[in-house]
């Protein structure tokens, strides 16, 4: 690598340094905008004891769900889970720790983690099981709870396009948690559909500046659809 060129040659290189018991922050919403090849590389490496921070945990044989059969995930922090049978089995058997976190709080925990803010107050979850053990405070006559931010040893991100400097552009709703995840990793690894030369993307159009990105790789993607809903073209 020279200068600001973030491109790595292989998926092995992309995930080098990921060790057992680390925390991985993952972008994606359902199966949309997930770093599917980076997840596959974690499976191949066989890294275990991971704490994964992600809105969801994939399905049985795709996305983060592929890390479940070999028990590579010790704990997951997510807002909505249980779209897969192995997850359910491990959760019910107490083999997998699940920390349910409201979706907006999860996004803000990542954002704050990447922005150097250790904690924040939110009304979300006040008076609910989410508030247990958390500091409560009143502002302007309303009650809020304190939520701590999250940082990861690694962040795995999927973007649409990048230049070699790691400036990222996302496509449609595949953006979701990816920009926040990108800011919150000590090592942020991004896979994209296309890498272009610096200057080919307009500075005005960059969603995530390259400063957050450590490693970049171009992959090919299955982009599996979780709920395929269509209307007939006559409608």
């Amino acid at each position, binding site marked *: 690598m020279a200068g600001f060129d973030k491109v790595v040659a292989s998926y092995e290189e992309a995930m080098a340094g990921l060790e057992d018991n680390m925390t991985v922050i993952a972008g994606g919403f359902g*199966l949309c905008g997930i770093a599917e090849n980076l997840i596959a590389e974690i499976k191949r490496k066989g890294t275990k004891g991971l704490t994964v921070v992600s809105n969801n945990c994939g399905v049985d044989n795709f996305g983060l769900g592929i890390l479940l059969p070999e028990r590579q995930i010790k704990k997951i922090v997510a807002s909505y889970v249980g779209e897969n049978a192995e997850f359910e089995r491990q959760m019910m058997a107490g083999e997998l720790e699940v920390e349910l976190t409201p979706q907006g709080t999860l996004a803000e925990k990542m954002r704050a983690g990447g922005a150097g803010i250790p904690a924040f107050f939110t009304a979300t979850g*006040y008076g609910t099981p989410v508030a247990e053990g958390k500091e409560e405070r009143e502002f302007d006559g309303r009650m809020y709870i304190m939520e701590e931010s999250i940082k990861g040893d690694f962040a795995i991100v999927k973007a*649409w396009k990048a230049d070699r400097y790691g400036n990222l552009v996302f*496509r449609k709703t595949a953006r979701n948690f990816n920009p926040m995840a990108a800011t919150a990793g000590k090592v942020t690894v991004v896979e994209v559909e296309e890498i272009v030369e610096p200057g080919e993307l307009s500075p005005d159009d960059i969603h995530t500046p390259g400063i957050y990105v450590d490693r970049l790789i171009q992959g090919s993607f299955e982009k599996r*659809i*979780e709920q395929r*809903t269509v209307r007939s073209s006559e409608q």
Partner: protein
Amino acid sequence: MALSREQIAMRVAQELQDGYYVNLGIGIPTLVANYVPDGMEVMLQSENGLLGMGQFPTEDELDADMINAGKQTVTAITGASIFDSAESFAMIRGGHVDLTVLGAFEVDVNGNIASYMIPGKLIKGMGGAMDLVAGADNIIVTMTHASKHGDSKLLPACTLPLTGKGCIKKVLTDLAFIEIKDSKFHLLERAPGVYVEEIVKLTAGELVVPEHVPEMSF
């Protein structure tokens, strides 16, 4: 007659106003989109990062990168915008969404809502529901008035773990339109052909019934 799912959605749609930004939950709330009055413009917010959600795509339009909060493939309307999850919840938590419609298991006289977890059963998580109920001022809860076994879902106090505390002011059930204030339910309207006595019987929390209870009209 109790309202059908579609009629519940139709009645909720009467609460829409031109220029509203609206978040619709999964289930009956989603149906509200089908009954936006003619000549009225509303924009649907999907919390995965889309403002201006359109209909399902045709086979030709199908795009894996374009989904809604229910993970269904969708399209965007003209004038839509797309953003990240933190931005999406800034809109929600910051009170910028004009109307939120969502389902529930239970609601109580203090405006508490339980909608995400039944202990002992599979726990899937709250998704964005806790943020939605905490952030929105104008929320309509849609649900059946009672369970299939006749147990009221409008309670003196919720029995299930809460999604939000003191945040619900309006509930539309298959039997009635109810407002919550001063720690009581207030009967605003009844479904066509439904007797007040039936609503009273199926409302476990304290219910204030005015002398005249208008019938809903569609």
